[in-house]
C-alpha cells in the first residue's frame, strides 16, 4: 500500500512539475541547451 502511495505521489508530482514548467514563459536564458546566461 505504502509503495503504491509513493509511486502515485511521484507520478502526480511529475505531472504537476511538467505542467508548471511547460506553461512557464521561457526566459531570456532559455535553460534548454543554449547556455545563454546561467549563473555560476
Amino acid at each position, binding site marked *: 500500500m505504502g509503495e503504491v502511495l509513493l509511486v502515485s505521489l511521484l507520478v502526480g508530482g511529475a505531472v504537476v512539475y511538467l505542467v508548471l514548467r511547460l506553461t512557464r514563459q521561457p526566459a531570456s536564458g532559455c535553460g*534548454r541547451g543554449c547556455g545563454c546566461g*546561467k549563473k555560476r
Partner: protein
Amino acid sequence: MDPAGCSSSPSQGRPDRSATDFRVALAGNPNCGKTTIFNALTGLHYKVANYPGVTVERKSGSYTLTSGGEITIVDLPGIYSLSGNSIDEKIATDVLLGALATEPLPDLIVAVIDSSNLERNLYLTTQLLDLGIPTVVALNMIDVAQDRGFSIKGELLARELGALVVPLSADRGQGLSELKQVIEAHVRSPGRGCGAAFRWLPEGSEYRRSAQELGALEAAAAPRSRGVAALLIGAALLSNSYQPATPGVAAAVTAARTELDRSGIDAVSFEATHRYGWINAVVRAVVTRTAAKPQPILNTIDYLVTHRVWGTVIFFAIMTLIFQAIFQWAALPMDYIEQAIAAVGTWLQRMLPDGVLESLLVDGVVAGVGSVLVFIPQIAILFACLGILEETGYLCRAAFLMDRVMRKVGLQGRSFIPMLSSFACAIPGIMATRSIPSLSDRIATILVAPLMSCSARLPVYTLLIAAFIPDSQVFGFLSLQGLVLLSMYLLGIFGAAGVSFVLKRTILRGEPALFVMEMPPFRFPNFRVVLRDVVDRIRVFLGSAGTVILACSVILWFLASYPGESVRESFAGMLGGLMEPLLRPLGLGWEVGVAILASFAAREVFVTSLATVYNLESSSELTVPLSALLQERLQAGQFSLASGLALMVFYVYACQCMSTVAVCRRETGSWRWAGFMFIYMTGLAYVMALLTYWLAQGW
C-alpha cells in the same frame, strides 16, 4: 562647455539613494568586449563570442564593492551610434537616454572601446559624452591594438575626452582591477571626471550656442533627459523618433533647427562632419604607429578561408571533420556511461523487492534518464568544436561565404547569427533576430531558424544512426555514420533556405536589406572560454535530464504500465495507436507514435520514451541499452533502414518544442506566426519523411 549639466550626476539630488541603487551601464560598439567585462565584474557568464551581435538584450548583474554593498552593472547590446533602429539597438539607446520608465538613467557609463578600431568606436563615445552622464572610457583589446602596431597615449586621450581612460584587455584579465577601482571611486563620489560634452563642436559656432542653450533648458525642465535635446538638433536620434522631455524643450529644438537652417547650416551633415573631424584629429594625436607584429600564418589562413573556392572546400572539410569526431571520439566515453547506467539499474534491481517502485525506478527513471545521459560526450565534442571556430572568428568568415547564398534565398546577412545560434537552441536564435531592422526579414528568419538542428536533436540523430547505419568507412577513411549525421544538419540548412525562398516570394515579400558585417579579428582561440561554454552546455543538459526528462520518464512509465497487462494495452499504447495510421506509411509502429507525442515537451524525450517503452516490453529484467533494443527490432523486421532514415528526417524538420513556439509568439507578438510555424514545420516534416521513406525503399 557643459550643455547638459555634466557637473552633477543623476545620483545627486537624490540623497536617499544608496550604493545598491547605483547603476553602471556598459555601452559600446558590437564585438568590443562589453560582455567579457560584464562577466568579469559580475561573476556571471553570459555568452561571449568573437562576432558582433551576440548580446541582443539588456542584462544586469551585481558587483560587490570592496567596501561592502553591491551596485548594478547593466550590459547593453552593441551599437554604433545612438541612432540605430533595430530592436536590440533601441534597447541600448532607451537605457542610455532614460527613455524607459522601469529603468533609471545610469549613474555611470563605461564606454567600452575596441582599441584596434579607435576612430570608429570614438563616434559613439563622443555621443555618450554629450549625454552628460558621468562616463569612463574602457580602452579594451589594447593587446590587439599593440599587436597591430598601434600605440595609444591613454593620458592624452583622457585629456582630449575629459574622461578617465582605463586601458585593458578583458580577455586576458589585464586592467580589470584598475577599472574596478575607477568604478568604485565613482560610487564613492558620483560625478567626478565625468567626461566633457560637445568638445567636437567648433568654438563660437551657431550649433554650439544652440546646443548650450538647449542643454540648459532641458536640465531645468527634466533632469532625467540629459543632453537628448542638444543631440536632437543633429540627426543622431531622429530615426528613433525620440521626443524631448517637455513640449517647451521640443519647441526649442524645432526653433534651433529652423535657426540653423536659416543660417545655411545643415544640422545632419554638420554633426557628422565635425564629429568625425574632431575624432580624426584626436586619433592622429594619440595614436602612434609602431611595427606591427608579423602574423603571416594568420593572414594566409584568413585569405584561404574567405576565398570563394578554397573557403567553401575548407568549410565543408571542417564540418565533415567535426561530425566524424562526434562519432569516433565519443564512442569510448559513451560505452563507459552506458555500462555505468546498466550497473545502476542492476544494483537497484538487486536492492529493491519486485514491485511497482522497482519497475518505476529501473524501467522508468534509469532507462529513461540514462538513455539521454549517454549523449553527453557527443554534445561536448560538438560544442567544443563550434566554440573553437567561434573564438577564432572563423564562423564570421563562413557567414561571409554564405552571404551570397543567403541573399539568393531572400535572407540577409544579419540572419546568419540567429541561424548560427539556433544550432545550439532555437530560442536564443529567435531572440538574436532582434538585430534585424526589417520586420518581414525578421519574421522570415524567426520562421526558419528552428530548422537548424539544435543540440536536443543530436541524441535523436545519433541514437537512430548508431542503430540503423552500419559502422563502415567511405573512401577508406570517412565514417558513414558521421556522414549521415552531417547530412542531417545540411538537410536542415537546405530546408531553411528553401522555406525562406518561398516565404520571401509569397507572404513575406521584400528585398533583403544590404548588410555590412564587421569581420572580427582572426585570432587563436581562448580555450578557457571554449571550455566554459562546453561545461555550461553539459550543465544545462544535465539540468534538463534531471528535471523535464526525469518528469517525462516517470509519467511515461505510468502511461506505459497502466491499465492492461501489456504496453500495447496501456494508455501509452492507446495514444500510440491513434498515431499509427499516420506512421504506417513511414514503416513505423505505435511505439514511435508515443515517443513523438511525448517529445513535444523536449526533443530528447523521444529517446527517453523509446527506452522506457522498449524496456517495459523487453523480456530482460536488466536495463538494456536503447541502441541494442533498436537493433533487435531491426533484425526482427519491425524497423527498416528506410523507416529509420524517415524518422531522422522527420526530426530535422518537425517543430517538436513547446518553448520555441512560445518564444516565437513572444517575439512576433502573435499566435498567428507561432501557429503558422508549428503547422508548416510539422507538415514539412511529414512530407519529407514520407519522401525519404519512399526513396530509401526504392533504392
